[in-house]
Structures are given as C-alpha cells and as structure tokens.
C-alpha cells in the first residue's frame, strides 16, 4: 500500500478521504456536494489492510454492524431468559428437567432443552458478552487512533474545495479584509475558541475533547466487563447461601472454615393495630392486621476459628461480635457481608410422645425425640422403656413399598418404636408417622401418643464477598464521564480564509448545528460578513421542491 501525497505536500496514509492537512479531497467525489466528515476522512485501518488472517479477524470485529448485531442477539437472548424463571429460582429440590415440562408444558420442555433455564451463566451467553467486549476494543482502537492523528495534523489553511464542501459555507466581499479578520479573531477568542492563524487564515476550534467522549465511554465499559470477568477468579467474588436454625453454630460457607456463626434468634415482626403508629392504620385495615411485614431479623454471634483449619475437627472458637442482621443491615467482617434474605418459621426440631395404655389412657412418661440426632433408647422407669428402632426424617414408601426417607430434613418424620412394659417384656412394635399409626405385629396394648412438637425458626442468609465492586464502580463512573463528555459538548470548527480577495467562511460541528448557526450569527453580526448558508438544508428543500413539483 502506498502513501498518498497531497498537492500541499502532506503525505497521507492510503485510504484517506481528504488530505489530513489541507483538506483537499483525495478521492474522486463526483457530484457529491458535501464531504463526509466522519472520523475526519481518516483511513480506518481495517478498511485498508485485509491481507492476513489477523487482519481479516480485525476487520470483522471493527465493524460497527457486527457490534450492533452482537448486541441485538444478546438482547434477544436476554429477553428470552425472562420468559420462564431461571433455574436458580425454581424450588431447590425440583428436578429441572421435570419442573419446566410440568409447569409450562412443551414450551417449558423446549426452554429447558435449549438451555435457557440457565441462560445468564451459559457458555454461549458469556461468549456473546465477551465478543461484544472484543468488538468494543477493536472498534474503538480502529477509530480513535486515526481520528486522533487527523485532528492533530489538521492544518489551518484548507483547500478551497474542502471549504466549499462543508455544510455551512459562505463567500463574502468585504471592504477591509484585514480589519474584518482581526475583528473575527477577537470575537472568536472571546467565545473561547482556540484560534490559530497562518498566512492570514484562521482556524477557530473548541470542544475538541468532546470527540473523545465515545472512546472514554468504551474504556469505562471495558473496565466494567473486566470487573465482571474477574468475578470468576477464585476468591474475588463469593455468593453463597447459608441456612442456620436458631441455637445452632455453623461454619460460614465461603470462608474456608475460618468463621462460624451462631444464630441466637430469628425475629419476624408485622405491623399491628394499636401497637404501631396511627399513620399505618389505613394500610393495616386494607391488608389485614399482622399481615404486613415490618422486620426480618436474625440475632447472631460471629466466631473466628483459632488455630489450624481442619474440617470436621471440633473448632476452637473465639467470639468476634454479636450483631442483629436485618434486611439491608448486613453483618460485615473481613470484607464479607451476611445478608438476611430468607427464613422458615416453625421448623420441627423435636417431637414428644407419651407411652400410654390404649385402653385406659394411662400414661407412663414422655419421650422427646430430637429430630436431628435422636437417641436410641429412652428409659421411663418402673420397667417402662422405649427403643427407637428406625427413624425416617422425610418419610415415604419407596418403590418396593418399604418405608424410607426422601432427605435428611425432618419434613415428615416417622418412627418405629419398640415399647417395653413390665407386662410386655418382649416389647411391642409400633410405626408412628404424622396422623398415622401402624402396628405391624398385631394388636398392641400400648401406644405412643403424640404429645407435642418443638419447633424453631431457620434463617436464610446470603454470604457475599465482592472485590470486583470498586472496579465496576470505576468502570461505571468512566462510562458516565465519557457519555457526558460526548453529549454536552460539541466539537465546533470555523475556518475563515481569504481566497482571491474574498472572505470564505466554512463551519463544522459534530452535533447541534442549530447552536453553531446561532453562534455564527452572533459572531458575524455587524461585520458585514454574510451568514454562511446551510447547504444540506438547501439541498433538502430543493429536493422536496422538486418532488412537490413532480407530483403536482
């Protein structure tokens, strides 16, 4: 590829639309009256070199069309992802393959089979986002560098053909060129234009930094994407769920066994009439007394493990602090934050039974079975004794019709007791489930009568640690700066030149032509210089006029 030497002596890269220095159109523009000022007519690299594979890949990603297509595809996919709930929001014990089919029919089945159930974490979605990132980087590089070069090298004196092909262009005859030029120069400087002078020609420019707005904006986006990418680096981002019942001490997941949490109490409060401020009465009446949640709170104690971390070993714990975790008031420690996000009220903890004579109803003592760690044998004295033969926390009959358990959570506890009494030394077996008693070996004399259920509340907490948040913040801030930079400032340029004893004025702005025209009007007021004409508008008018004529 060869460089192109303009008649002004400036050497331009191949592919340049008009000379970087003097603005003389290099390519044959034919009848086109106006210059395309985008990217200052500079040679976008990707458009000019397509020899190697690398260049072809580069050219592909540098296309704005490709970028827009990627964004549109991602948007459509994201929309589809909201049609049915994502997998993380379906009940945790449900089989997704079954769940989607059951709930949403064939559409749900298709949804699951195409992988939309876990869309935002799927490899192709992440790949799409990554490709948008690549497109951003390459599009920006491919444009900002030539643009910077072109703006830096622009000469003050422009070729007349550059001037007459600007949208705002006018030719005036003034009596004293020198004086008019001086007045204009002073007025331009007053309007905070940066004025350069060369051989009696003027180039006034302001707001050039607005041209960098989109690229600053892209840098912000790229930093944002890097932040999002870093979330997958181990240790940078932790988002775990922790269920903790009242009274229990558990390891906090995601802390590698270094921190433990004890839940003292879970508190659920509602708005009640009479107890709360009167202003709430109307709302309470509308929704119902005790129906509006007021507070979800878990009172916890945070412990730190001292000594080496060996999973399973009884940890030596050191109290760090007590804290009431409430919604939006997380417990914060060591860059971790524990949020109150969920709860389960009245989870079964222990069940009590009385050993009773079925006939007389006489009782011989109470047995309390811990549903999480039941004892095997319960001695009631006076020769009465109960043994727990089997325990099914989440009872069901399996395929073979045998009693079994579905999980380790006591959702539906069932027990096989063997009851010993002085008159039944061999014992009687009784199968006890909720609302149901089976005596597998015939009629028993004794029974285990339900005597009460101890419950406790369970708090659902989210464990969060995020070292990427500040990166996302910085990226977001830069994004906004770029946006403001590009939106609220315009890059305006005014060329004033003497051509054959006439005063030529041309002006260009990257946006807000209305503002530029107003500024020019004020600038030229009383100088005897004619207001430059808007060639684009004239052309449009002419076109419309012609059309109207044609149809009439």
């Amino acid at each position, binding site marked *: 590829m060869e460089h192109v030497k303009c008649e002004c002596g400036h050497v331009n890269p191949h592919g340049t639309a008009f000379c970087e220095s003097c603005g003389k159109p290099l390519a044959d523009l034919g009848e086109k009256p106006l210059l395309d000022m985008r990217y200052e007519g500079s040679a976008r690299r990707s458009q000019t070199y397509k020899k190697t594979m*690398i260049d072809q890949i580069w050219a592909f990603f540098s296309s704005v069309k490709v970028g827009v297509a990627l964004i549109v595809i991602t948007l459509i996919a994201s929309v589809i992802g909201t049609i049915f709930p994502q997998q993380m929001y379906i009940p945790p014990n449900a089989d997704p393959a079954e769940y989607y089919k059951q709930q949403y029919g064939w559409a749900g089945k298709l949804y699951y089979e195409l992988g939309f159930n876990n869309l935002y974490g799927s*490899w192709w979605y992440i790949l799409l986002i*990554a490709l948008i990132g690549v497109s951003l980087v390459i599009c920006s*590089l491919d444009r900002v560098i030539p643009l910077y070069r072109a703006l830096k090298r622009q000469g003050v004196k422009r070729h007349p053909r550059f001037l007459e092909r600007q949208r705002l262009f006018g030719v005036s005859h003034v009596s004293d060129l020198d004086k008019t030029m001086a007045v204009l120069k002073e007025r331009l400087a007053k309007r905070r234009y940066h004025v350069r002078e060369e051989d009696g020609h003027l180039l006034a420019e302001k707001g050039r930094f607005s041209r960098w707005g989109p690229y600053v904006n892209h840098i912000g986006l790229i930093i944002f994407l890097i932040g999002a990418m870093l979330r997958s680096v181990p240790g940078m981002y932790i988002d775990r769920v922790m269920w903790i019942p009242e009274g229990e001490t*558990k*390891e906090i997941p995601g802390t590698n*066994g270094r921190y433990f949490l004890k839940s003292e109490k879970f508190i659920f409060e509602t708005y009640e009439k009479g107890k709360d401020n009167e202003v709430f009465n109307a709302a309470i009446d509308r929704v119902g007394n005790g129906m509006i949640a007021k507070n979800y709170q878990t009172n916890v104690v945070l412990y730190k493990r001292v000594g080496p971390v*060996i999973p399973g070993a009884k940890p030596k714990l050191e109290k760090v602090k007590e804290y009431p975790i409430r919604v939006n008031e997380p417990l914060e420690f060591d860059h971790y934050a524990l949020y109150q996000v969920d709860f389960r009220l009245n989870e079964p903890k222990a069940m009590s039974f009385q050993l009773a004579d079925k006939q007389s109803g006489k009782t011989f003592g109470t047995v309390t079975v811990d549903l999480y760690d039941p*004892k095997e044998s319960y001695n009631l004295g006076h020769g009465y004794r109960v043994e727990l033969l089997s325990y099914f926390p989440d009872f069901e009959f399996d395929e073979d019709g045998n009693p079994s358990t*579905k999980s380790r959570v006591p959702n539906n506890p069932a027990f096989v007791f063997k009851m010993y009494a002085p008159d039944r030394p061999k014992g009687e077996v009784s199968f006890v489930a909720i609302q149901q008693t089976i005596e597998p070996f015939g009629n028993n004399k004794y029974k285990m009568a339900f005597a009460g259920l101890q419950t406790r509340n369970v708090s659902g907490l989210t464990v969060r640690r995020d070292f990427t948040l500040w990166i996302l913040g910085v990226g977001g801030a830069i994004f906004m700066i770029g946006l403001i930079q590009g939106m609220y400032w315009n890059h305006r340029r005014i060329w004033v030149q003497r051509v054959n004893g006439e005063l030529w004025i041309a002006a260009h702005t990257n946006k807000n032509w209305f503002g530029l025209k107003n500024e020019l009007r004020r600038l030229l007021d009383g100088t005897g210089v004619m207001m430059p004409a808007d060639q684009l508008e004239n052309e449009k008018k002419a076109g419309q006029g012609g059309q109207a004529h044609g149809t009439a």
Partner: protein
Amino acid sequence: MKKQQRLVMRTVILLVLLAAIGYTIYTNFFTEKTAVAVGSTAPDFVLTDLKGHEHRLSDYRGKGVFLNFWGTWCKPCEREMPYMNELYPIYKKQGVEILAVNVGEPKLSVEKFAERFGLTFPIVIDRQDQVLNAYNVGPLPTTFLIDKNGEVKQIITGTMTKDDIQRHLESIKP
C-alpha cells in the same frame, strides 16, 4: 516495516482478548464443579466414626483412600454399598482404605443403615457439613480416589458397578 508492526500489534491485542475470554470461559465451566481438583492434594479432615474412633485423612498417607460421600436416603449410594463392603477386606490388605463420609445424618439412621448391610468399613459422620464444604460435594454419591501421596487421582459422581469399584481401588494401590 510499519505494516509488520501493525500486524504484530493486532496479533498481540487479539491474543490478549482471546486469553481473557478463554480464561473466563475456563474458570466458569471447567473448574467450578468441585473445589478439589484432580491432581491437587485432598484437604485434610478429622471425623469420628460410629465406634468413636477419630479418622484423620493425613494419617492415611502411604495408603490409597477411597473416599465416598453418601446419605441413607440416596438410592444410588445404597446400591454401591454392598460392593464396597465386599471388596473392602481384600483391598485393605493391599493398602487401600475405604472411608465413607455420611452427610450429617442422625447417628441412629447411619447405624441402622450400617447394620442392615453389615458394613465393616469405617463410616464417619460430617455433622456440620464442614468436610462437605471443603470438598464442595454436590450430588451424591461422590467418590474421591486419593493415592498414597494424598493426591486426588479421580473424582466420580454417580453410582458405580462392582467392576468400577474394583478398577478404582486397583488404581490407587500404593
């Protein structure tokens, strides 16, 4: 000369971008499944078995360890238990231990289960899910094959046939 530079520059930028994407995809889809990767040292732990004996993984250095996570409600776990039980005495003599970690169920349930199948290998209970967390075990059963140097050789999720188990036990003989 300049063209050469440009090509190098473009290649470098594309490679950097490709590396970033590759890394993201890799960490998201190929490393998340377990915290303990094949080839890494199996995290140490201490748990107590049904008889009250403490088992510390690092005490088994020099022997292969067949570490099986299971629950009594899990039918696939139940199916492979008898095979493990059958092969246990044979491979114990050859320096491979079977250690079954129950995922925090009541001792009573585990005892009854062990009685029902006459299990002879040590069964430990992970009451607080600490070992489960450390190994990031998802579905049950999950089995870690650990060699004599304490290195994880293989991670198997799902039920195994007797042949599978034998092959796996064979693979971690010291």
